């Protein structure tokens, strides 16, 4: 009987073969945290340990409220800064042009490596599965304990296999695929599981598209989500790796799965997640014409260069009809799309560009919503009131759909634009 990816990665970390449902303890390769580093450091100090077990294993990236939108945020940042200094922990990404959204910066800086174990005090840590990493979100108390002990316990998860074959049609994006999967699996359909993406449909996707898929893993309740690490991953990590102790791991052909789903990407249509749950899927044809007040392009889900270029392709020579906020997911991406003219195209169309960070995704600043307002967003969550007032509404969609909708002022099928 073969092994799943989770069984292999956790077995490698445990130092002995493991099977689903076994409880094991492993040492994480990296521990990611963001603005919550300050509160974690306070809990850490209560344990009675002075030094983090391995300060070089900590990666701290400020992104949730940058630059600090309130003095409470500023206090959290200050504490994080002081703690990292005090610990002599080198991997700190402060509010600077070396920063960005943690889930973008972490791989960009070479911490997301195949076969390694990453824990992060943020639920979207599962994004790093795009690099063949076993990466999962945890809470603050657990992170403090991991810093102190160098250990974390896991129940080896059962796995779900999602196989995608074929190619997406013009106007259809990886985001449309994962929103459709969300609608099928539902928000608790992969609770506690490891979600594996298989098939030529996935291997044909770019790293950026795979990150979009894995990013939504938590929205199905998954412990982690992962794609097979291939040459594209090796090319990406080359010259960036912050550790040499990694290994390409993938599921055996005869691995055992709790659930299996199959998709032909050619059948996928543009879609959205309607308010107020990520699994509230609708095909675009069912919601087209819905009036919007704001469009948002960015986040760890879809704020990468190819997302912004796709949007710029739609917006070139046009004007947006509603306020449209663009946030490149990191300052490296910001520079890239500044140099290639993408930002000019977006500015010419009437978009505004904000600094890299989480921005309005979690309603902290830079584009919160008024009562009754509707936003179409490339983010990963549309929970009630997440972007501002509790009587506001969020539709999640692909960058193409968001751009087309921004021009029309209402939800628009991107295939109409591509058909012209």
């Amino acid at each position, binding site marked *: 009987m073969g092994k799943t990816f989770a069984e292999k990665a956790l077995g490698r970390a445990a130092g002995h073969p493991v099977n689903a449902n076994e*409880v094991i303890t492993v040492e994480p390769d990296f521990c990611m945290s963001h603005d919550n580093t*300050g*509160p974690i450091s*306070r*809990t850490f100090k*209560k*344990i*009675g340990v002075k030094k983090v077990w391995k300060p070089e294993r900590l990666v701290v990236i400020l992104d*949730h*409220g940058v630059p600090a939108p*309130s003095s*409470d*945020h500023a*206090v*959290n940042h200050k504490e994080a800064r002081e703690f990292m200094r005090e610990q002599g922990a080198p991997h700190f990404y402060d509010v600077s042009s070396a920063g960005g959204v943690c889930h973008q910066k972490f791989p960009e800086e070479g911490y997301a490596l195949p076969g390694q174990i990453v824990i992060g*005090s*943020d*639920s979207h840590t599962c994004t790093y599965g795009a690099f063949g990493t076993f990466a999962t*979100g*945890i*809470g*603050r*108390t*657990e992170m*403090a*304990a991991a810093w*102190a*002990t160098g250990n974390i*316990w896991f129940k080896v998860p059962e796995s779900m296999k999602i196989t995608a074959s074929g190619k997406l049609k013009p106007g259809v994006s990886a985001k449309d695929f994962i929103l459709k999967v969300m609608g099928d699996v539902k*928000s*608790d359909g992969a*609770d*506690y599981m490891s979600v594996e993406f298989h098939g030529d449909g996935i291997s044909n996707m770019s790293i950026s598209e795979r990150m979009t898929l894995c990013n939504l893993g*938590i*929205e199905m*309740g998954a*412990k982690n989500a992962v794609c097979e690490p291939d040459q594209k991953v090796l090319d990406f990590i080359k010259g960036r790796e912050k550790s040499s102790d990694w290994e390409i791991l993938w599921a055996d052909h005869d691995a055992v799965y709790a659930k299996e789903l199959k998709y032909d990407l050619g059948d996928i249509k543009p879609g959205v997640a309607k308010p107020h*749950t990520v699994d509230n899927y609708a095909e675009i044809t069912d919601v087209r014409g819905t009036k919007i007040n704001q469009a948002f392009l960015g986040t760890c889900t879809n704020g990468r260069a190819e997302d912004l270029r796709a949007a710029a392709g739609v917006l070139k020579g046009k004007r947006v009809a509603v306020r449209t906020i663009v946030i490149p997911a990191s300052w490296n991406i910001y520079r890239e799309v500044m140099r290639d003219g993408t930002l000019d195209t977006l500015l010419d169309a009437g978009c505004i560009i904000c600094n890299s960070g989480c921005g309005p995704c*979690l*309603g*902290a600043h830079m584009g919160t919503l008024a009562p009754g307002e509707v936003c179409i967003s490339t983010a990963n*969550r549309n*929970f*009630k*009131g*997440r972007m501002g007032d*509790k009587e506001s509404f969020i539709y999640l969609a692909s960058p193409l759909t968001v751009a087309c909708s921004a021009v029309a002022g209402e939800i628009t099928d991107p295939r109409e634009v591509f058909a012209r």
Partner: protein
Amino acid sequence: MGETLKGRAWVFSDDVDTDLIYHNKYLAETDPKKMPQYSFEYYPGKENFAREVKQGDFVVAGKNFGCGSSREHAVYCLKEAGIPAILAETCSRIYYRNAINNGYPVLFVKGLSDAIKSGKIEDGDTLEVDLATGTITDATNGNTFHGDAVSELERDIMTAGGLIPYLKTRRK
């Protein structure tokens, strides 16, 4: 038989996400004692929760309670409000770990989602809960429910009062 806790039920649906329990906009707050005032502010019909909740009341929910973010605020805001335990059919993985790590019991109760939908357990009902056996009696209508037992490691962490005290005792 363990001690029987008695309290009122506050009943919630399936898929109660972390923004409904504790909204984003209060994330910069780091003092758990100040968190209960924001509990369920965004949950339609439960805007009164923070004002009216009493020490000993129970949160009763369907499937996938606490889905979404890893924020521990969503555990603190209920624990600090004096809710002795969460009774849910299932809850999200991260929420569950956060609860255990804070010594806060979540009782998994089969059939609770349907019971809520069909009115077999309602807001304001008086509940008698035995955390050791997992038995829940709705004293208002006589219905009973049964929760699952937790694993040994989880029980040890909870008995110690959470992950931090657990680690401290193990370091001695």
